[in-house]
């Protein structure tokens, strides 16, 4: 984490009028970041994204953004009306940056959409209704929409929530490729094992930052208990930490 920071949170406290949902949070998003924010429901993950996006302001502390920073956001799939009458191409085109007064897209804009869909491997789905996509394709479409704005930082809320294991791997591999290409990525998740296998940097959050560092440093029983409020067993598999729900060790149930 030595590159120039894109966004820095310094001693940030934030709430919605009641008790703070984030307290004394320090965090730096570097230009090459590929970070997962893990924590239970209500731990402040989404609020942290909103502070990074700039849609919410801290009650205390400061949020500092690099000058001219371009940030894109991918919401949870569950928050979207997949019956809305748009095709994949139209959905991606929503994010176009021009200030044209006419409603229809230019040839240049259409080419730009085709290019980004091609890059994400869903070019053939351009004319499909969004309802007809699989979970992985929906995620790719939203990432394509985000990339159309040519961001330096991509923020994603629970990108692996509600998708199967194969789709989770597909999405995380895609994000890894984008990160290798120079895009900083920060995502929130409940999915400890998926993150441990794919992300180089994790932040355990429960109102405060409990721990921050590599998966090996963050996914340890003590940190998990302080973050999730429950004892969890951590096993090692091919050099990666694997979290096991301690109540289900006997049944070989894996938490995630």
């Amino acid at each position, binding site marked *: 984490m030595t590159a120039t920071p894109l966004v820095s949170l310094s001693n940030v406290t934030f709430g919605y009028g009641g008790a703070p949902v984030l307290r004394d949070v320090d965090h730096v998003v570097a230009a090459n970041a590929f970070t997962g924010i893990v924590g239970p429901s209500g731990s402040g993950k989404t*609020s942290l994204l909103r502070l990074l996006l700039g849609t919410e302001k801290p009650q205390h502390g400061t949020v500092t953004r690099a000058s001219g920073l371009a940030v894109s*956001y991918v919401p949870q799939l569950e*928050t*979207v009306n997949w*019956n*809305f*009458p748009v095709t994949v191409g139209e959905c991606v085109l*929503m994010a176009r940056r021009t200030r044209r007064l006419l409603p229809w897209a230019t040839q240049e804009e259409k080419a730009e959409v085709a290019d980004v869909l091609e890059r994400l491997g869903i070019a053939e789905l351009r004319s499909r209704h969004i309802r007809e996509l699989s979970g992985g394709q929906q995620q790719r479409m939203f990432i394509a929409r985000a990339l159309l704005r040519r961001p330096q930082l991509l923020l994603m809320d629970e990108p692996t929530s509600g998708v199967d294991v194969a789709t989770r791997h597909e999405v995380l591999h895609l994000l890894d490729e984008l990160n290798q290409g120079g895009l900083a990525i920060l995502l929130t998740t409940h999915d400890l094992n998926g993150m441990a296998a794919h992300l180089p940097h994790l932040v355990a959050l429960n109102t405060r930052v409990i721990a921050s560092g590599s998966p090996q440093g963050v996914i340890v029983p003590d940190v998990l208990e302080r973050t999730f409020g429950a004892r969890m067993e951590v096993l090692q598999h091919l050099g990666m930490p694997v979290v096991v729900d301690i109540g289900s060790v006997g049944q070989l149930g894996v938490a995630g």
Partner: protein
Amino acid sequence: MEPFQYQFVVRGILAAVLAGALCGLLGVFITLRGMSYIGHGLSHAVFGGYAAAPLLGLPILLGAGAWGLGSALLINAVARSRRIGADAAIGVVTTASFALGVALLTRFGTKGPSFDALLFGSINGVANDDLWLLLGALVFAAGTFTVLYRAFLFSTFDPEVANVSGVSVRRMDALLMLVLSVSILATLQIIGVTLVAATLVIPAVVVRMLTDSFSRMLWTSTALGATTGAIGMYASYHLQIPSGTTIVLVNALVFVLVLLATGPRGLRRAAGMDDHADVPAVTRVSSVR
């Protein structure tokens, strides 16, 4: 073609075409944003302004328009305060405004259309000024949605992401309220306050059953609204029934026919029109936590 000999019928049908087109166009945004109840409520609120404006010495259009917009903003403010729910806020503000309108019209009367005409619409008494007002409202709505097409589409589909992508969702919501208030005011005499909501909702729902394209929805809903308006007004003359009633009944008939023709596929499309909008658009972005 006997009725077309009469100027008032021609003016009435022209007004119904313009009013139907306006409501059909606006209805696409209203239904997809889950704002049907706001459309219903605002028409009642505008009625209060219509009755109160002359008593306050204000021109009816200005007074009722400002009253409607004020009601919309008040609903917005009450809902945002989160002390009471958005639907309760709409219920309180708009029914109180409607009750005030009834009280004022009963007590002081009206120099314009009759009480019944304001409630249910009428083919009688459509003046050239009314046609110009309707045309102006339609041009205003169509111009707004053309120039700000992407911003309205984005903020309707995904307000949270639109907000961080350079679209001011709050401004789009306020602008839609303004267009809605102006449109309700312009169509008041043709369709009536109690029936405006149906002409906002039905054409959009019908075309949603027929197409998966947002842009196609816009123009087909506009065309359908204009057509059902014309047929409804023509039927109003022949059946001697208030025009708002016949326009809504024609819309309802089209709805049933399209539902029968499209079957479960159409129903499935229309059923989830505003799935993401579990609270009205005016409170969506601010209430997401």
